[in-house]
């Protein structure tokens, strides 16, 4: 497990838009960040849309399907689960996700992609 001190400060709470997305550059990776106030949580997934082949997911629309929070790609509308990165419309697609943490006003992110689906499968 990655040590806590390696987490990086991305931005502050008032840079985020409630129930919607913004994007951060983490090394070479583009990370889409979605702030969901009632969960008190920020979800981080890959900004790259594998179907549209463009960096746009942070600009998609947030919604829910039963218990799953998702973002719908602004290009061709595939929905991706904010928690797991899984595509609800195409089983074969799973996006990288990252862990985030709010410390007061500060949003911290673990730059190591944290792929829940892969972890589960690995056992």
């Amino acid at each position, binding site marked *: 497990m990655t040590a806590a001190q390696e987490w990086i400060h*991305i*931005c502050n709470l008032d*840079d*985020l*838009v*409630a*129930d*919607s997305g*913004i*994007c*951060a*550059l983490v090394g070479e990776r*583009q990370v889409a*960040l979605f702030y*969901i106030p009632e969960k008190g949580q920020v979800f981080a997934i890959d900004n*790259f849309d594998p179907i*549209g*082949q*463009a*960096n*746009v997911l942070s*600009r*998609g*629309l*947030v*919604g*829910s*399907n*039963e218990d799953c*929070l998702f973002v*719908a790609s*602004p*290009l061709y*509308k595939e*929905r991706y689960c904010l928690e797991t990165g899984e595509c609800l419309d195409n089983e074969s697609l799973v996006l990288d996700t990252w862990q985030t943490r709010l410390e007061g006003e500060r949003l911290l992110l673990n730059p190591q992609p944290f792929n829940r689906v892969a972890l589960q499968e690995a056992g």
Partner: protein
Amino acid sequence: MNKTRLVVVGNGMVGHQFLQSLADSGQLGEFEVTVFCEEPRLAYDRVYLSSYFSGSTAEDLAMGKIEQYREWGLNVLINEKVVEINKDDHLVVSDKGTTLSYDKLVMATGSYPFVPPVPGHDREHCLVYRTIEDLEAIKSSAAQGKVGVVVGGGLLGLEAAKALCDLGLETHVVEFAPRLMAVQLDDMGGALLRSKIEALGVKVHTSKNTQQIVDGENCVHRMEFADGEVLETDLILFSAGIRPRDQLARESGLAVGERGGIVINNQCQTSDADIYAIGECALWDGRIFGLVAPGYTMAKVTVAQLTGGDAEFAGADMSTKLKLMGVDVCSIGDAQGRTPGAKNYTWLNEGDGTYKKLVVSPDNKILLGAILVGDAEAYGTLLQYMLNEIQLPEFPEALILPSRNDDAQTGLGVAALPETAQICSCHDVSKGDIRQAVSGGCCSVGDVKGATKAGTGCGGCVPLLTSLVNHELEELGVEVSHDICEHFPYTRQDLYNLVRVEEIKSFDELMQKHGKGGKGCHICKPAVGSILASCWNNYVLNPKEVKLQDTNDTFLANMQKDGTYSIVPRIGGGEITPDKLIVLGQVAKEYNLYTKITGGQRVDLFGARLEQLPDIWRKLIDAGFETGHAYGKSLRTVKSCVGSTWCRYGVDDSVGLAIELENRYKGLRSPHKIKFAVSGCTRECAEAQGKDIGVIATENGWNLYVCGNGGMKPRHADLFATDLDKETLIKYIDRVLMFYIKTADRLQRTSVWMENLEGGLKYLQEVVINDSLGLGAELEAQMAHVVETYECEWKTTVNDEEALKRFRQFVNSDKPDSNVVFVQERGQIRPARAEEKAEPIVMVG
């Protein structure tokens, strides 16, 4: 066993149905079939022939497909006509010299249009309306003239008149009888129909007996009538009835009727037992049936006879339901009340232009016939009463009188119909067949149509079919859901009314009060966002609503395939000053944007990065531009032609009006995008009849067209009102648009909305022109609010620090998106393809 050699003469609608039924019977293998098709193409849908003028192609109309016929193993001879039948030797001979022997012969030769033998009937530009070739001739003739006359005010004549109107001709209908649709209607119905058709600009002349056609003074022809009057016209279209094509039968010695028609018995056999006749060429019990449904029944009877069945033809119902030039007209059974002792019940409402009549048996128990003009709602119910001899209610008039209170349920519930009730007459589908289809797994009207063909002919039975299918589904416990999505148990219309009535101002409030919880989704969020904007016209980027918008609305620009955006400033009416054009060029150069003239008469700048949008817009706004809402479900453009200011033909200032309309309705959020156009004269260079709202200048004002569409399924706009002054024009547009916003489904263009609107054009005219729902003032006030509260969203945005925060590629870096790469093409940029991105040298600034 040898195969039966079967020859089919004629491949029209009925000839095709015969082949289809034979194939469906599964016994095609017993036959060796040869089809003679005189026309240069296989069977097509004559019933929908007129749609050829509104964009359908010969392919769209095609019924017989050559691949299908080959698969069935038919021998098809196109463009080949049978000229001789030798019934003693069982031979047929064609005009191309083919000689074939047959065991059984089926004649499906149809009919031809009757042209009264008045002197001059054979002049050039005297035409008929039966085949695709006829329509092509009409089209080219109409292009050369201004005035058209249809001779014959029957069913087909009125349809032909509509076609001439659509072709832009000043249209007249000349009828020999004292009323229109003399066969199907009575005097009162005919008179009402006449007034409605005249209101649409068609001139009707009844009791006119044409004596001769000679050279005209101002037009090509001059028609001279027995009463001494004359009429000048460039084109004459004869639609004075049909005559069966029985010449071949006559020459071959088959029995024909005194007034034409190949005589057949109940088995559809002619006087020669090996020869059958079906469709419009056949005479049964002294009657010719000029509709497809009876012909289809004959086709099925003949197939049964040929394959060992015992079905017989027992006559057919000639009831008709039509929408003539937007006017509903229905005629059922003994509409004229010829049955001795029959009683009439009539209802005439000159206020809303409806006429209804019942013809009832002497004992008041059974419906014999009916007429409906202007309101066809009762057609399905009345037809069922008549066909199934269902006992009438105690006071039959209740069936046609308008119900003034809600509990007065007079319509015949579908549950009351007997199992044998025929729902679709075109394809002879009964209630029992439909119930079977539903219990067999069909879950929607579409499924049932596919499984039974019901509703796929003339379409007249679709409302009844729909209520039956929904009824059956509900009986089976299947919920028929009209909910917008999983988050709201409501339709878009319901949500709109909730928002309006309860003055709901945000998505969260609506979710809390009426939703099922959750975050909403890509279906309900933009729909609710649009409703809130239509009702309250709030700035779309206010923090409460920003999360509702699709990306295009969020960033006030259209996202392109590579994640960059396009910029479309408003260029009202397509008019732009040189200075503004220069600014567009300068901005495009400065930011290296791809420039293109759009299909909507404006300029689109492509390839702007998210973070560049505010700077670019600041420059455009400083130069006097506003947002063009190319991203919104809202007014797009009002296209214009140059109009009377410059054009030698223009009769009014189309550009001026277009700009005024564009400025009035810009920013109006609606269920889908809205496009307008204004033309300066009937040449229609702005293509207004392809727009949601189209306006065309006339000598006396403006003609208003509504609910046209280009795009995937083009629809010709309907003429809504004529010769309006500007004030009335704007009032009508206000009302039409607000009523659309109030009642349409999400992402439903006005064209589809109109197609689904119960009562159609007429209903909309009632609501808007006659204010039948008493909504007029309210709709206008709602529009006035939107007009008054308009703001340019980009102007607001560039001055709003909070909103600008979102226009950053990265919250924590100023770097651009490295995946956005352009290459040069034809002197401008375009997005690099994947393989080009791998080559760093091609990158452009």
